[in-house]
């Protein structure tokens, strides 16, 4: 920690930073207003499944926003970032106009800045901890927008720096799953000289970034650029490969793999187990989003079908629910509704997504809970029964507990229902390794900070350890696991185990 503080201080005292700080008075900086992200018009954007809502900042906008940052002595923003990005340093590079250096700064700690700049819940992380929010009670520096700007600038410049890799050490290791946790792990390990293979069950690389988060929020091509980079650095990818099924851990060990990083995600969708939930037209958000995002079901040229509902109810208040309801709107729903049992304040979704959804005409039926579904003679859902809720005392999570209002039931017409009430850890790995220690909820137990499981050569991170969490936390886990697996393997090297 002191090392880190020391490093931040040294960086902050560099001549260029001092100069920039002295150029404009803090008072002038804090008088500036936060930049607005240029967005596609709501009525226009709901016509397209694949056009990004946020258009990105122009050079002038980014530089103006960067000026707001005061390059604080004690940059509290960094404490809010799970991977401790050196925020003032990259922001000041933007102010100075050195955008490629800004991108390089991001990459010191983050493997996927273009992704995190788009999907991080900044308002609960870095921006929540910014001096502006904390002390000035003003809008935070738009750290997320700036991060996206720098990463996009680098990508579009065609001058992406492919990091240097250490000489090959010949040690084979495997990463299981290809979501953000594995990708950041693979990036770090390849730099250290390891022979890295990423195994993915699906036919596409990227995990939730590909099959879950829609194009209008995170275009696939952005993820693909990162994948290309990893490939250039030598990371190998095997799709259509389910570790534990296609080959066992023992098979892989026999093929020379010395250690494993399990990042298989929390892919198992939860249902509510209420009457009628198995009728046709009621599906998990995973199924709905997979059909649309991974299988291109909305495009007639592709074979996979998807229900296009007129009256669509999405159950839940998280990012997954927002993504589903906004997708339904784009596929032509007349009514696209969020049915959420708490109120807007408790919604776990990113604030920006809720705002975008409202602009797009999504109806919010907060403090409502489904209790039963009804269907037509063909078994297709046509009606749902809702019960009104009110908020009671705070529960263990600190959020006020929803309580049912007796006698408040009423029915609404629906022809498509998407259930987005959370996910559980995928049990594939646990089933393949009976000795592996897992929690009551099925998440893999790891040693805090080291990400090492009860099986020494097996490390784990991301949603399979945390339950449904975030991209940046998954990425941070990947980096921690890489550092500690490296240490573990080097110990084995010194004790001549190879």
């Amino acid at each position, binding site marked *: 920690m002191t090392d880190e503080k020391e490093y931040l201080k040294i960086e902050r005292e560099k001549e260029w930073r001092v100069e920039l700080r002295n150029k404009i008075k803090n008072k002038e900086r804090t008088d500036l207003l936060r930049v607005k992200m240029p967005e596609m018009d709501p009525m226009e954007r709901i016509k397209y499944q694949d056009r990004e809502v946020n258009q990105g900042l122009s050079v002038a906008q980014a530089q103006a926003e960067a000026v707001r940052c005061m390059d604080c002595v004690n940059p509290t923003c960094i404490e809010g970032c799970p991977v401790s990005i050196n925020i003032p340093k990259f922001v000041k590079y933007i102010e100075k106009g050195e955008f490629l250096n800004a991108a390089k700064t991001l990459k010191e700690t983050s493997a996927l800045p273009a992704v995190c700049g788009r999907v991080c819940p900044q308002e609960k992380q870095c921006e929540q901890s910014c001096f502006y929010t904390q002390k000035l009670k003003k809008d935070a520096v738009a750290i997320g927008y700036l991060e996206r700007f720098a990463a996009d600038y680098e990508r579009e410049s065609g001058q992406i720096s492919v990091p240097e890799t250490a000489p090959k050490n010949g040690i084979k290791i495997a990463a299981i799953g290809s979501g953000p946790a594995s990708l950041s792990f693979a990036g770090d390990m390849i730099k250290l000289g390891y022979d890295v293979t990423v195994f993915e*069950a*699906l*036919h596409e690389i990227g995990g939730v970034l590909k099959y879950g988060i829609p194009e209008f929020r995170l275009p696939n091509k952005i993820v693909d650029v990162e994948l290309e980079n990893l490939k250039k650095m030598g990371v190998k990818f095997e*799709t*259509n*490969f*389910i570790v534990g*099924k*296609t*080959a*066992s851990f023992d*098979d892989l060990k026999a093929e020379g793999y010395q250690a494993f990083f399990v990042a298989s995600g929390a*892919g*198992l*969708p939860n*249902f509510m*187990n209420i009457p009628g*939930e*198995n*009728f*046709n*037209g009621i*599906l*998990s958000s*995973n*199924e709905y989003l*997979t*059909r649309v995002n991974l*299988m*291109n079901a909305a495009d*007639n*040229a*592709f*074979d*996979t*079908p*998807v*229900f296009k509902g007129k009256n669509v109810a999405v159950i839940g208040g998280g990012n997954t629910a927002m993504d589903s309801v906004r997708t339904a709107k784009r596929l032509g729903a007349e009514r696209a509704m969020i049915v959420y049992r708490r109120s807007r304040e408790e919604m776990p979704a990113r604030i920006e997504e809720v705002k975008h959804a409202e602009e797009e005409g999504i109806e919010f039926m907060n403090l409502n809970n489904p209790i039963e579904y009804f269907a037509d003679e*063909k*078994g*297709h859902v046509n009606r749902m029964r809702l019960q009104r809720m009110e908020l009671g005392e705070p529960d263990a999570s600190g959020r006020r507990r929803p309580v049912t209002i007796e006698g408040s039931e009423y029915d609404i017409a629906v022809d498509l229902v998407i259930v987005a009430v959370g996910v559980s850890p*995928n*049990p*594939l790995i646990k089933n393949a390794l009976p000795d592996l220690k897992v929690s009551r909820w099925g998440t893999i137990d790891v040693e805090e900070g080291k990400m090492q499981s009860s099986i020494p050569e097996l490390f784990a991170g991301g949603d399979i350890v945390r339950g449904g969490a975030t991209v940046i936390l998954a990425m941070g886990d990947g980096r921690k696991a890489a550092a500690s697996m490296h240490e573990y393997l080097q110990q084995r090297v010194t004790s001549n185990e190879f």
Partner: protein
Amino acid sequence: MNKIIEKEFFSPKVACFVIEAPRIARSRKPGHFVILRVDEKGERIPLTITDADEKAGTITLVVQKMGVSSEKLCALEPGDEILDVVGPLGRATDIHKVGTILACGGGVGVAPLLPIVQGFKKAGNRVISILAARSKDLIILEEEIRKWSDEVIIMTDDGSYGRKGLVTAGAEEVILREKVDECVAIGPAVMMKFTSLLTKKYNIPTQASLNAMMVDGTGMCGACRVSVGGQTKFTCVDGPEFDAHQIDFNELMLRLGGYTELEKEAYQHYFESSIK
């Protein structure tokens, strides 16, 4: 990419493929299936692994033309490649020695039945197989099933081959004739439903292998959910075989029909684009 090594038509609508898939060939057990995607635009469809040759590194799939995806697959020839094949998926059949097994296969369901019949025979059971289809040309894999059965009864709806009648008629005759310890039924949902009702009457433990709608096959989407004993199960990871007497077949049949309209549209689209 998985190369097609051999292809043979069992009937105008049913083709058998031998496909290169060395890892799957090594890991698979009776009851397992794969999910494949023919090309970039294709859907992911589940098909049972009928047989495998570990040395040659191949698996055998038998597919019946139903709609776009199965037609596309059946149009491929030896030397062509299938874009994605993933597996083995599902839980393997619980093969054990119990005495006498009654194995009922309807239509293309005989394909997934074959490895199970083989398994039970190898485990030392007496195996009586009933193959049922609408007519003679839809009876498949008869020779292979004979090789692993003590007795084979053929039933056709129209009487064009074997005996005239439904699978249940043949099954009941066997049950009344001798002691049957367990039954396995694979075929169309209605066929499994009525076989299950029959064996329930005689208290014979029965497994049915369900052909629920699937997308990923790894437990991620829930498209394949079925009600078994009043609980929701995912066919791809908890099945595909379940205790037939606990399965809600009516719900399964409704769910299988869920995408019918959309599939008809897709077929129309496929048909139009292939004649252009």
